[in-house]
């Protein structure tokens, strides 16, 4: 199965019943598969007039209680930014798939990249926090899409599946389970102010059509949901909570794989560069070479770095100029070496072996 198809299958298994999007290479197969399958399970597929409308329709659908998603790539992702901020501010669960391609601008529509990793974290205006997952196989395109829906409903936040073109278009054998774990949105008890957050900092969800009479606005709002855009303390409290509800749970959300924890030279990867590192370790098994692979990139799970107490260097192959290497640098005192390879070509095993040799 192709990665993009596995993503759509994961969404269907997770109970996604609404897809609103706009065709864009190299993500289109996700939409095509949803267009074919959703009507058969009582869901809705709608091709919108642009990506702005795509994410808008997804947010609207989510307020009716539906699990909803869209899929896109760089240029479409840029167009979605304003409404991503709206989803953050209104605490709307939704899943966005970005099959990353080379940018800036139209760039390389058919070639792989991981250059939107900071955009997904910081691209919309204002301070906020989101969750981003990064699959490194077709199986993970399925699994992490399921996880994305569960995390979105649990934290009431947009969740990004930040795949790259290589994983999206790769074909591998996968196993689809009979059922997948499902975490429901917490329901708002009737009579409770709709944006009053409990200790977990996540308010219950007042679904449209259930008699809550909730007003949902992108303006700074009080716990009743009423606009109150000029109070410094209210705004500060709201934004701090929106950030803290994700960041304070980052060790729970964290999801990574550790290979050779006693190693001194450690690769840190997410997405398709992980495959080259796996090839290196397969070709030359060596306990002195470690591998930390993030399946969740945001919120950044910095405690994962502690799994390699003997590490003397982190080598970070990415399909960008060092976006996550820079984040890793913030959390460690040992050298962090970005290994950028972009333009669409994947790192070769020889190239990574050479990088290891430099630190022997």
């Amino acid at each position: 199965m192709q990665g993009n198809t596995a993503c759509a299958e994961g969404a269907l298994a997770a109970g996604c019943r609404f897809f609103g999007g706009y065709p864009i290479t190299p993500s289109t197969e996700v939409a095509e598969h949803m267009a074919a399958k959703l009507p058969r399970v009582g869901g809705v597929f709608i091709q919108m007039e642009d990506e702005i409308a795509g994410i808008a329709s997804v947010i609207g659908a989510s307020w009716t209680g539906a699990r909803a998603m869209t899929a896109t790539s760089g240029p479409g992702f840029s167009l979605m930014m304003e409404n991503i901020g709206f989803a953050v501010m209104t605490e709307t669960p939704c899943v966005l798939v970005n099959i990353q391609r080379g940018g800036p601008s139209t760039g390389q529509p058919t070639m792989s990249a991981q250059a939107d990793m900071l955009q997904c974290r910081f691209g919309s205006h204002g301070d906020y926090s989101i969750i981003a997952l990064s699959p490194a196989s077709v199986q993970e395109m399925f699994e992490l899409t399921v996880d994305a829906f569960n995390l979105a409903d649990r934290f009431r936040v947009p969740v990004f599946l930040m795949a790259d073109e290589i994983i999206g278009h790769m074909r591998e054998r996968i196993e689809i389970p009979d059922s997948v774990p499902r975490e429901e949105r917490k329901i708002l008890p009737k009579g409770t102010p709709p944006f009053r957050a409990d200790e977990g900092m996540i308010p219950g969800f007042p679904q449209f059509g259930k008699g809550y009479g909730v007003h949902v606005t992108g303006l700074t709002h009080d716990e009743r949901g009423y606009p109150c855009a000029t109070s410094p303390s209210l705004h500060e409290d709201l934004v701090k909570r929106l950030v803290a509800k994700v960041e304070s749970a980052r060790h729970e959300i964290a999801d990574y794989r550790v290979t050779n924890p006693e190693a001194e030279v450690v690769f840190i990867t997410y997405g398709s560069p992980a495959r080259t590192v796996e090839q290196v370790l397969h070709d030359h098994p060596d306990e002195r070479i470690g591998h930390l692979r993030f399946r969740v990139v945001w919120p950044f799970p910095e405690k994962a770095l502690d799994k390699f107490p003997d590490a003397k260097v982190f080598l970070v192959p990415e399909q960008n100029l060092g976006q996550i290497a820079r984040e890793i640098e913030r959390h460690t005192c040992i050298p962090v070496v970005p290994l950028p390879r972009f333009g669409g070509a994947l790192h070769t095993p020889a190239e990574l072996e050479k990088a290891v040799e430099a630190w022997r």
Partner: protein
Amino acid sequence: MTYSDWLRVDRLPHIYCAGCGNGTVINCTLNAVDRMGWKKEETVFVSGIGCSSRAPGYIVTDSLHTTHGRALAFATGIKMANPELHVVVFTGDGDLAAIGGNHFIHSCRRNIDLTVVCMNNQIYGMTGGQGSPTTPRGALSTTTPYGSQEPAFDLCELASAAGANFVSRWTSYHVKELTRSIHQGLGVPGFSFIEALVQCPTNYGRRNKFRQVMDQVEYFKTHGILVQKAHRLRDEGLPIPADAILLGDMVRRDRPAMGVKR
């Protein structure tokens, strides 16, 4: 019930300026919704950004106050995901015709079962009086200080050409007619578009020789002509005044629609 049962009274007073026409249109819309006999829990109001788009915040039902220009795209998601809900969209000329123009024509084309009430004040009111796509040629605004040089959009022509099932235009003067047309639009399966010209004394009227609130309302009254009359004048080869405002129901048809309650 009456329209006042639909108001979220704990949010009053509202933000509208003294003399604003938007309240009239909200009143007409709520009266029309009330006459439909819809339940509050089955009704959702959606809006974008601008003076008109603050309206859903004053209504007790579920409501979604979205981003600038995108109300129709959000509303499409709501209505397609749950056709059982009645979805009414409040928008304005800047929200709908400028930044949201593409969503407008595509919502008309899809003929999504929404009712859209556009409060056209011919200006950007909330940001302080900049020219909009419906600002008449020659009119003064803060961004057209020498008079607007751009031809204005005819929103009803646009909705008609793009495929809406119901299209109508009235003004804040024509309260009964406006209420009746909104009521009709609410009952039409498919996309219903009702444009309501409204006075904006603060940001349009005072720059354009409508010194008093009622001067602009009076203008709507004296310059409005029924679309049927305009057609008759045209057929008889008689002139239609250049500054006439065409009023009435322009389109009532039964194109295939989407998102209609099953």
